[in-house]
């Protein structure tokens, strides 16, 4: 345990949203050189607390001091002037700008001059998070966006680095390199406040931990000595069980419900990935996992499946035997398919719309009780939103809140629940448990398994290899727009998949 001075101290922080106390008298001290974990289930108040420390929210009560001196952090500019840097849970990137421009904005003017593109390239390589400085953010998948956020923050050389779930969409290798970097920074005296739902990495990485539940500090366990189960129990307040491994189950014999046949798609943006002769069959009753490093065509594959990018040929995609390659999303939904994209804010849900309106957005074409003759039935929609909230244990503010008011993990539960609630025959889902706490992640995985058990075909795209190994009956790997044949999970190994992810199948 490094014995640096107290860098940042917060006392009695209270933050209320309406009637709900998101933070309820929280005390926290972070020392120089310390890797401090902030743990808690979805909606526990972690993001709220760090936003207060970063000055983007103002506490209702409580005080903050920096190096022993009382301070008020009125806005992010002041926090940055103190030396606080933050990687946000929901990215704060500029879609219309390039990677280099996004990074330049966060740096002092003298560091953001002409050589920046080269700096970005070399520094990002050295952190193990390679970036193309000329790419436009709009065209990049979330994994790469996460890298930008992290590299941008590291380049600022902060004295306190706040990271809100930085690894949830990174590959294990990228995460490993990030930990090395963080350890080195801590060695140089930088303090890190680290939020993650991956308890294993917290135990590897962090020196100390603070656990929140319902906005209160419920414990300060030592992550080096506490077991995973201890931490999880502290977070959730009850024991947590796994979803149960699917390995060794008999191969599914149901009919092919989702088929992709020789699908090739030119990238429609300069930095996209072209799909090259992708073929895949998913039978009713099975979950097929697609593993791969971010930015290898997962987004394009998902868009082709959902109909956001129609194929040139109807036969390229079949849902329950119906050729639908050129259909749009709504017509595919009417065939019984459902789609859950990876990015919950902005793609899967509209932050400024209420949950009921968000529920209508993907379901008005398939649920006649939500809309008839172009007219919406809002009370039905509110009922539906309520049902999803209850069934999937979404911890949301009272009533019918805007999607943006939900914590990240709770919104994820909502967008997953919205589609699962329909009992689709075919489900394509990308990053199903991104940012969801372990209790809820287990719940979502169990729901996916139950859906498959009832005869649905489930295709799950994820960068989390553990998740893929846990939930899939068969696994395919996507690399540079090509998809390897799907093999039964029991017949493959982590190493074999790792090799394919690196492009060994080409």
């Amino acid at each position, binding site marked *: 345990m490094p014995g640096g001075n107290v860098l940042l101290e917060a006392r009695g922080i209270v933050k209320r949203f309406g009637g709900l106390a998101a933070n309820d008298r929280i005390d926290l001290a972070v020392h120089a050189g310390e890797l401090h974990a902030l743990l808690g289930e979805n909606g526990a108040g972690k993001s709220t607390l760090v*936003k207060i420390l*970063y000055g*983007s*929210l*103002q506490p209702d009560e409580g005080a903050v001091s920096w190096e022993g001196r009382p301070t008020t952090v009125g*806005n*992010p*500019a002041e*926090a*940055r*002037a103190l030396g606080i840097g*933050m990687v*946000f849970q929901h*990215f*704060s*990137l*500029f*879609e*219309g*700008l390039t990677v280099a*421009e996004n990074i*330049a*904005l*966060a740096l002092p*003017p003298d560091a*953001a001059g002409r050589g920046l593109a080269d700096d970005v390239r070399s520094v990002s390589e050295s952190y193990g998070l390679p970036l193309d400085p000329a790419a*436009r953010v*709009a065209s990049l998948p979330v994994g790469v966006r996460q890298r930008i956020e992290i590299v941008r923050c590291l380049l600022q050389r902060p004295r306190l680095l706040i990271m809100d779930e930085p690894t949830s969409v990174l590959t294990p290798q990228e995460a490993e390199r990030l930990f090395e970097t963080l350890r080195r920074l801590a060695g140089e005296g930088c303090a890190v406040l680290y939020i993650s739902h991956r308890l294993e990495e917290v135990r590897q990485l962090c020196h100390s931990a603070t656990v929140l539940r319902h906005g209160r500090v419920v414990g300060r366990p030592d992550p080096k000595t506490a077991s995973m189960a201890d931490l999880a129990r502290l977070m959730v307040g009850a024991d947590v069980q796994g979803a149960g491994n699917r390995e060794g189950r008999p191969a599914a014999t149901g009919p092919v419900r989702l088929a992709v046949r020789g699908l090739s798609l030119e990238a*429609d*943006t*300069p930095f996209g990935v072209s799909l090259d002769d992708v073929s895949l069959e998913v039978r009713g009753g099975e979950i097929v996992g697609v593993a791969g490093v971010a930015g290898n065509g997962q987004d394009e594959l998902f868009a082709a499946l959902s109909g956001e990018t129609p194929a040139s040929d109807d036969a390229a995609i079949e849902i329950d035997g119906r050729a639908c390659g050129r259909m749009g999303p709504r017509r595919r939904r009417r065939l019984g398919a459902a789609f859950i994209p990876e990015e919950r804010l902005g793609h899967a849900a509209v932050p400024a719309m209420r949950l009921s309106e968000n529920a209508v957005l993907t379901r008005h074409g398939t649920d006649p009780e939500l809309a008839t003759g172009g007219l919406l039935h809002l009370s039905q929609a509110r009922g539906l939103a309520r049902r999803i909230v209850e069934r999937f244990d979404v911890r949301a503010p009272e009533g019918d809140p805007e999607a943006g008011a939900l914590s990240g993990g709770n919104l994820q539960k909502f967008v997953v629940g919205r589609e699962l609630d329909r009992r689709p025959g075919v489900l394509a889902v990308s990053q199903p448990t991104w940012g969801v706490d372990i209790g809820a992640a287990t719940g979502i995985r169990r729901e996916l398994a139950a859906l498959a058990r009832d005869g649905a075909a489930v295709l799950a795209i994820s960068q989390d290899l553990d998740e893929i190994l846990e939930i899939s009956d068969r696994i395919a790997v996507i690399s540079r727009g090509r998809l390897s044949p799907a093999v039964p999970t029991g017949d493959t190994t982590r190493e074999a998949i790792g090799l394919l992810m690196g492009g060994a199948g080409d």
Partner: protein
Amino acid sequence: MTGFEAVVLTIVTAATPLLIAALGELVTERSGVLNLGVEGMMIVGAVTGFAGAQLTGSPYLGVIAAMAGGMALSSLFGFLVLRLAANQVASGLALTLLGLGLSGMIGEAFIGQPGLKLERIDIPFLTDLPVVGTILFGQDPLVYASVALAVCVSRFLFHTRAGLALRAVGNNHASAHMLGVHVIRTRFLAVLFGGACSGLAGGYLSLAYTPQWVEGMTAGRGWIALALVVFASWMPLRAAVGAYLFGGALILQFHAQAEGIPLPSQFLSALPYIATVAALVILSRDQWRARNDSPSCLGQVFVPDR
């Protein structure tokens, strides 16, 4: 002066006020603020510019008065939409109405007075060159200023840090705020710049184009400048192309009508609009780029979370 030179000169004088106003609005919109009051700021600039020149006896001080007039009106707009978070569309439309009314009131005393003209420059030898002499070296100073302004705005937006911050604010104000950029301050400065440009464009009309004050003399040019910004997909040099194209088509169709070309006059009057739209659509046909160049926060109110 040959007929050709005369035509080119009129094209240039028709294009210049459009270009100046469009550049100002372009910077404002790049910061994410939609100011529909260009017409109102222009007409106020026209009258304050004219009044300034009459009262001081110097058309150059008139130019400054024109910019000040536009800026004064835009600062009111900025206060409404940035400090009070008022609706930008409604406030912009109100600004136009206010500007038209205000200018009529200020201008009442100046109706019918002969104005002071911003003289064209005259460089010995160069201006006397055949064909290109007057076109290149015999314009009034604001013509050169407007072209320089287009280049400067382009350099500013794409090659300076402040320009990057401005685009960032227009692209995603919440993220910009999180990175410590002062969103409201940046937008206020952009609005003021837009106001100064609109005022200057109005002043051009009353000091160079037709040196006199006539009520409603902007005659819808502010609206055309607004449209140019969109069709130029928020690119300053494209706005310049658009302004000259529009100016050119406008003047040529006058001549065509005067020559009695056997086309319906309604069609000829519509021609500048059609030509400009067509040309700029072709220029910005790269869909993907166009989508990403547009400031995504345009017209949205920014109130930081508390």
